């Protein structure tokens, strides 16, 4: 059994990778793609001032959108994957991961940028910058120092990206003037990879502006390199605690997945999910046993008294419930049961009263009368959402139970049991029901993911802050990181439920073994 479970757990990895790759691709293919998501995060609208093309280059560099889609996905995957390679990341007080500084964009070798003397000068200035860095001593100081250094490096990098973009634009202009516009790409720039094909005429009047831009870019590159070197040194002084647990120092470590940073909520996605997932699970953990506890005995009784009033009535009522849409039922429940204009029996929204934090856990009779306490308050808030989630589930499960039981009533081993003198009650409970369990376990597999998605609607209607609400919000706000993280979480929960069903199957049916 253990090898089987571990094999199944390992198989979950490619499944999750496939799922997330699909969602990733869908987000990228959607109009605007990740830049829409990023610009929504950056506040939207066109950046003010300067050449919009240069501003866009800076923006794309900030969110690393220039890389191929698969590389971007790979970087996301590496962050989410619990096994990490390379230098360990650090975690700051807000929970944001701080990684080893990203490498600078490639320099465009125009003029003397690639000369040995220039390279030598660059290396020396980087070494000097590094040497000039002294880590501040108390930890808080060191963190402030890191933030300062990081800001400087960011500014230096931004000006480098701007200078490079200007250089590419100048090159493109020059190329167009000298009749080499074939080298210019769709963005109106001349990428570095096509530089070797460019015929250079230093005497051309436009070349002087190219040379000037190249010098600016060179200087920016030197500054950015120095700033990055300082940032590296500051990172190495470990201002924050390291994430995860090291296995091979500097090479391999194991840590919690980094689900990213929600830019719309300005909080780590991980902590958002940690708040939302228990809410969804709570609703489902209450709803699931309710469905099973009502539907299975009802189905058993209906099968044992086939054709009786109970059989017909329970079937009819369950099917009727099943055909009521959740959206309608939810709105009706709020309108009539919860609204103060009508009955006002239940709360309208949320999972807790506003003052629930100050309530005692259990209900009590005090001087001020009955105080319902935290637990009862929660139950009271759960009644309507759980009812809406549950009522439609009875029909399928109870009919399935009934059919499975009826099937088994005619089985040969039931006849054997009767011939042994086993009482009817024992036949139903011991022989028939035990065999009818098997299809019910399979049902669990199909119901569980449906329940999770069903709770999206219920959560929305009753303003319950669960995974469903989070997912809807992420989609409507273009929060890519949150969408991906939700996909991962819902995927994990569903896959684990499937695994649980398979394990239960092996427990219930001795003919199934996963050796």
């Amino acid at each position, binding site marked *: 059994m253990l090898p089987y479970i571990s094999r199944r757990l390992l198989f979950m990895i490619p499944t999750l990778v496939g799922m997330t790759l699909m969602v990733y691709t869908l987000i990228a293919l959607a109009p605007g793609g990740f830049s829409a998501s990023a610009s929504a995060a950056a506040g939207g609208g066109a950046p003010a001032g300067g050449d919009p093309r240069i501003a866009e280059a800076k923006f794309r560099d900030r969110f690393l959108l220039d890389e191929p889609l698969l590389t971007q996905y790979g970087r996301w995957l590496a962050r989410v994957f619990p096994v990490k390679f390379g230098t360990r990341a650090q975690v700051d007080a807000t929970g944001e991961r701080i990684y080893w500084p990203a490498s600078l964009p490639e320099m465009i070798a125009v003029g003397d940028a690639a000369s040995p003397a220039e390279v030598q000068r660059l290396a020396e200035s980087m070494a000097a910058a590094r040497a000039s860095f002294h880590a501040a001593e108390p930890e808080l100081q060191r963190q402030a120092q890191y933030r300062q250094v990081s800001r400087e490096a960011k500014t230096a990098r931004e000006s480098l990206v701007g200078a490079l973009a200007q250089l590419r634009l100048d090159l493109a202009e020059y190329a167009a003037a000298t009749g080499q516009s074939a080298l210019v790409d769709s963005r109106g720039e001349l990428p570095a990879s096509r530089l070797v094909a460019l015929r250079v005429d230093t005497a051309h009047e436009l070349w002087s502006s190219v040379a000037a831009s190249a010098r600016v870019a060179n200087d920016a590159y030197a500054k950015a390199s120095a700033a990055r070197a300082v940032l590296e040194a500051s990172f190495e002084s470990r201002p924050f605690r390291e994430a995860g647990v090291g296995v091979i120092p500097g090479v391999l470590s194991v840590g919690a997945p980094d689900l990213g940073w929600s830019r719309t909520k300005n909080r780590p996605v991980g902590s958002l999910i940690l708040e939302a997932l228990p809410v969804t699970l709570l609703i489902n953990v209450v709803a699931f046993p309710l469905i099973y506890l009502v539907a299975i005995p009802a189905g058993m009784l209906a099968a044992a008294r086939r054709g009786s009033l109970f059989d017909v009535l329970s079937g009819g009522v369950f099917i009727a419930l099943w055909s009521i849409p959740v959206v309608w039922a939810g709105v009706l429940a709020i309108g009539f049961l919860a609204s103060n204009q009508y009955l006002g029996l239940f709360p309208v929204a949320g999972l807790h009263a506003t003052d629930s934090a100050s309530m005692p856990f259990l209900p009590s009779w005090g001087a001020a009368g009955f105080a319902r306490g935290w637990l009862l308050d929660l139950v009271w808030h759960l009644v309507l959402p759980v009812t809406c989630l549950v009522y439609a589930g009875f029909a399928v499960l109870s009919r399935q139970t009934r059919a499975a039981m009826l099937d088994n009533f005619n089985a*040969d081993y039931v*006849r054997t*049991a009767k*011939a042994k*003198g086993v009482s*009817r009650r024992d036949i139903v409970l011991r*022989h028939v029901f035990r065999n009818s369990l098997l299809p019910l376990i399979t049902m669990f597999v199909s119901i569980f993911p449906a329940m999770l998605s069903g709770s999206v609607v219920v959560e929305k209607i009753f303003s319950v802050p669960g995974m469903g609400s989070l997912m809807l919000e992420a989609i409507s706000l273009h929060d890519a990181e949150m969408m991906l993280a939700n996909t991962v979480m819902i995927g994990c929960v569903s896959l684990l439920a499937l695994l649980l069903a398979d394990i239960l199957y092996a427990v219930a049916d*001795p*003919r199934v073994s996963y050796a």
Partner: protein
Amino acid sequence: MDGNGPLLEVADLAVSFDNSGGGPRIQAVAGLSLTIHPRQTLAVVGESGCGKSVTAMTTMQLIPCPPGRVDGGTILFGGRDLLTLSEREMRKVRGSEIAMIFQEQMTSLNPVYTIGDQILEAILLHQRVTADEAVEIAIRALEEVGMYSPIESRMRRELAALKVEVDAQRRAPAELLQAESSLGTRMRATRLQLLRDYPHRYSGGMRQRVMIAMALACKPKVLLADEPTTALEVTIQAQILELLDEIQATRGMGMMLITHNLGVVAENADVVCVMYAGRVVEYARVEELFARPLHPYTRGLFRSIPGLRDHRARLTTVEDIVDDPAEFRKLEGYEKGVVPWWPFLPEAHRPALAPSRDPYALHEIEPDRWVGCWRTPHVEAHPTRRADLTYRRSRSSVQAAPSDRS
């Protein structure tokens, strides 16, 4: 119950079923009588749908009502009419005094319980024993039906060889004792393992043995074997039947053996009851029936068995015989009005019937031979006793139990 009386006495049993098509009720069994004595095997033969299984199931009261209904008759067992017992009283009879084994050995065991669970369920239901004692009973029952592993067979042979050596005083008797105890330990371990195993791990023949062990664990007085070997391969079939025969002889159990296989009848039955359309057409000792079948239907059954050296383009069928009115005149006493009953006999060849509701009567036409006849005035005027034979074949194999089984 006295030692000499019949164990089970079915008299004029009639069972019918609702016709789901809306027609009249279907008469599955119409006035059937038979008796089973201790140590006797009564073979019930006949084509599919002639009411063999319905008879057995009615005896156990396992016919679902509705659609089934017992229209009349009695089933006497131990001085009580089983048909008048309540469900509660009947449960005490089922499995404990009358046991039944079925044809579908692959599906007759519950797949989700161990073999032990299922045998112990029967034992604990009917016997006042502790769980440990029940395990012992189950182990003995499994031994009785010959469930043992190949390793044990080898150990038995080795033990026998050792015995010869010890008898010849070439080996010390202590070695024999040791070998015996190790075989005992081994066998016990195998049986215990068997009890813990699930049915799906065993072959059809082994499962049928488990079914038999389960049926016999409570030492029933009557065993209803509804085609116990039909789905089994011929060698296993022979083993199972031999096994039943042996157990029956040692326990004095009565057995109703329902089968299609006339070879099985010839080998195992004492008395044969041939059925057609819910009625007995012939009832006789096995040798007499095979030597001289009296009813045309029985003759048809025997004649339709092809011989190994038959080189005919078309085999004889039952219809060839029963469609020939001349066959019906062959019965002794035909002139007096003793005509074999046959539902499809053309009107022209039917004798004049006595004024009675039932055109059929099981008539003892000569001592210990019954044939289903038309109820003519002659038959009506000479009522005979009910079909009842205490006959048992002499079995040579019974006295000497095989040395292989201790």
